[in-house]
């Protein structure tokens, strides 16, 4: 890789920005910072000019694949197009320059936005009580699990087990554990779906909740969801929806009507806020009305058109974020919802489902499909056939990079051997889907005829198969000045 680290471009004495002159009487560091409080080591930041900084980060940016460049079919991540108006709205000075502790009469516009988004998400999910505080989907899961615990504790019930299908995202069991509960794994049936009987047998007096992704991570809708929900409720457990796959349902069906009591939404997936290279996202939760008292504080309350912050919620699980969550992301998500309106949101799920099924129909012959049948917004191919030819799912993913595409999610879900999880989203044209399908078909042919071509891929990227084992063995997590001499 050609680009040096910014530290390696440092020239002593250079600086990238200048401050206004100090225009108040200076008392001097000696007077204001006692010697025993002063920093001892020099501050080893790079010393570079603005042009050097701009070139450095511009050149680094060229090394990234991104949605604005081309197809990004990373399953379960919903890499849809991010409309630019979202960012313009979030950058309005009234939002971006607003301090979170401004007197409440000076944040009425921000609170209005919060309440409008809460109402829109309640309408979309069919679950009336919303908290926008969780900063990401995983934090939404954790928030909801804490709500579930508080709810059961209030009812004098000692429940600390959460049922989770074996196809679930890793965050589910991790969030359950962080909430101080135990994850109990539920086996999927031979069709990659929940078996009501298996669920029934796992439910018991210790079950606090059941966490389900629907459509599940195999990309199919759980046909027995109502039966499962009824059984969970009968056993006194709450039904939680991991909303990562809400792009399949928005405007089409509401989780509240399926028997879910609580869920999170990933605003950076379904509601088009940019992924930023791995955050910020936002993971609001929506819950049943009687769970509202347990939501994080502060709540935003409207009385006669005036908004205020309400901290006085004795049953609340407490605060989950230093302030109000990822507000800038909330502005973008509401902008998206307003842009599309009800008809546009319905088109989102329709087109996401159509695109996924179209792509699936084009790839069905070339790859194996563990669970046949139409999919919702994504599907999971299995490279078992290619594995016999010596080519693994990871090799196919790497080879796709040579065609200018990002790879699908690879080796997830865990219940599918050699999994390639593909989510095209609604943003893509048929032309893009065809180009991707052609690439996948070409790779399948290469696997059969010239497997080395795939196994040694990628051939065209800035770096090729970085040595991950070495990274972990010879751990280097930071640059140090001694590196200059290497």
């Amino acid at each position, binding site marked *: *890789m050609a680009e040096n680290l910014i530290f390696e471009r440092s020239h002593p004495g250079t600086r*990238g*920005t200048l401050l206004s002159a*100090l*225009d108040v009487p200076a008392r001097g560091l000696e007077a204001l910072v*006692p010697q*025993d409080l002063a920093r001892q080591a020099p*501050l*080893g*930041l790079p010393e570079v000019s603005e042009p050097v*900084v701009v070139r*450095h980060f511009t050149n680094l*940016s060229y*090394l*990234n694949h*991104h949605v*604005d460049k081309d197809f990004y079919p*990373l399953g379960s991540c919903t890499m849809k197009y*991010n409309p630019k*108006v979202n960012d313009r709205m979030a950058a309005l000075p*009234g*939002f971006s*320059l*607003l301090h979170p502790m*401004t*007197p409440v009469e*000076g944040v009425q516009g921000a609170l*209005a936005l919060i309440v409008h988004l809460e109402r829109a998400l309640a309408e979309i999910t069919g679950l009336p009580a919303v908290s926008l505080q969780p900063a*990401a*989907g*995983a*934090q939404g899961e*954790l928030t909801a699990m804490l709500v579930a615990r508080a709810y059961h504790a209030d009812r004098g019930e000692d429940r600390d087990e959460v049922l989770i299908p074996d196809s679930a995202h890793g965050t589910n069991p991790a969030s359950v*554990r962080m909430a*101080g509960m135990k994850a109990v794994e539920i086996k999927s049936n031979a069709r990659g779906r929940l078996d009501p009987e298996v669920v029934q047998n796992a439910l018991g007096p210790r079950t606090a909740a059941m966490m389900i992704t629907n459509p599940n991570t195999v990309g199919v809708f759980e*046909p027995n969801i109502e039966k499962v929900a009824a059984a969970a409720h009968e056993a006194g457990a709450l039904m939680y929806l991991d909303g990562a796959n809400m792009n399949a349902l928005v405007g089409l069906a509401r989780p509240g009507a399926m028997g879910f009591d609580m869920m999170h939404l990933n605003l950076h997936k379904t509601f088009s806020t*940019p992924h*930023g*290279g791995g955050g910020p996202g936002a993971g609001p939760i929506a819950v049943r009305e009687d769970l509202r008292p347990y939501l994080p504080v502060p709540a935003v309350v409207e009385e006669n058109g005036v908004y205020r912050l309400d901290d006085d919620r004795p049953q609340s699980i407490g605060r*989950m*974020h*230093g*302030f109000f*969550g*990822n507000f*800038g992301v909330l502005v973008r998500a509401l902008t998206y919802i307003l*842009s599309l309106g009800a008809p546009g949101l319905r088109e989102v799920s329709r087109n996401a*489902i159509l695109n996924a099924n179209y792509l699936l129909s084009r790839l069905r012959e070339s790859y194996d499909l563990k669970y046949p049948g*139409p999919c*919702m917004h994504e599907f999971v191919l299995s490279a078992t056939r290619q594995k016999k030819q010596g080519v693994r799912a990871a090799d196919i993913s790497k080879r796709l990079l040579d065609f200018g595409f990002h790879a699908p*999610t690879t080796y997830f879900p865990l219940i599918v051997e050699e999994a390639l999880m593909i989510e095209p989203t609604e943003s893509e044209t048929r032309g893009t889907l065809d180009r991707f399908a052609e690439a996948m078909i070409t790779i399948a042919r290469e696997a059969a005829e010239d497997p080395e071509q795939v196994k040694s891929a990628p051939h065209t*990227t800035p*770096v090729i198969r*970085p*040595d991950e084992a070495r*990274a*972990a063995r010879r*751990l280097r*997590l*930071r640059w140090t000045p001694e590196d200059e001499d290497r």
Partner: protein
Amino acid sequence: MLEAIGAESFEELIAPVPEQLRLSGLLDLGPPRSEYEIARTLEAWAARNHHGGAYRAFLGAGSYDHFVPAAVDHLSFRSEFYTAYTPYQAEVGQGTLTTIFEFQSMMSELTGMDLANASLYDGATALAEAALLAAAAGPRSRIAVAGPMHPHYVQVLTTLCRGQGIEVVCDPAADGLVDRGWLRDVLGDCAAVAAQSPNFHGLVEDLSGVFAEARDRGARAIHVFEPHALALYRTPGEMGADLAVGEGLSLGSPPSFGGPALGLFAARQEFVRQVPGRLIGETVDRNGARAFVMTLRTREQDIRRERATSNICTNQGLLALRATIYLSLMGPKGMRDVAEQCLERAHYAAERLGALPGFRLRHRAPFFHEFVLECPRPAREIVSGCRAAGVIPGIPLERFGAGHQATLLHVCVTEKHLRDDIEALVQAVGEAARG
């Protein structure tokens, strides 16, 4: 499309969704709207907010308004960074991976700690993650919060600890600096001691003694720091902290009503396998070229599931990028200049405000860029009295809970407050006090 798929209708594709679960009509969310129409609505809301561009605001307490050079926006809004995701495919994610490696390097340098992760949600959740890391070693199940800590940090810490049966104990009388006597009494069964400096009252304290005592008694030492202050003051590393956490939003990002924020997390080397969240490491590729990858992945939720060190799945990538660009532009000299100007301007403002009739500074200990002012009348009245002058003089401490005296005002001054801003502040506060 349907024909190519081989389906008669769209309904055939969604056959597994029971009909009674499908929405028959449209959601109650109105029609599609044009960009212009949306801008009109949102601009109207934004205009109702008293923001830092329209008011002279002296607000701190965990969110600090520092100047952001234009190049930070220009570079971070590049689609290549902005619309990428977690670099799962290192071959086409070297841009993001390299910047995060630079970010980790800068955070290690700033804090004087051995290593830093790729960031967490915000400062408050970073503190909670540090406490959970300390408590995970067992068997102790209490966390002591020594000295004045930001109340929201304590609240988030308490929420996340309660889930795992960990108790948070705070010094109820914390005012000013750490009370070593109180700490000595509670330390016996604590997994960790957390202390903030500059603390919630703005005061800077040498925590070396506190941290040494914590370690002698078998507890981990957690320093909650403020990144700009580290250009001037002893670092967590220099004071012997095991873990160091802070809020990095002020490094190149706007306040944005408190989020998206940037949780900073740094640690001593011995904790590397317990660190929550993402770590980027250096390696070489097949041709021997330097490359960066996500590393020690077996700590993370998608591999380790319920045995992961945390449930966190993302970091705050874009904010970390902005901090990296900001720190590159500032360099050591710029960071020091900003910190010195905060210090000088805050002391000038404190001196002027403290000299107003009936006002005085609450504490005598050294402070950085914020301080607590005792007013001759309730602070909320001072704040409303300043509004007409376009000044927000600070935060009445009672907004953080009924335990605080109504006359206390929390004031923050940064390098963005020039002399005429400070003069306007002093005049507005003086007039508000007279009523």
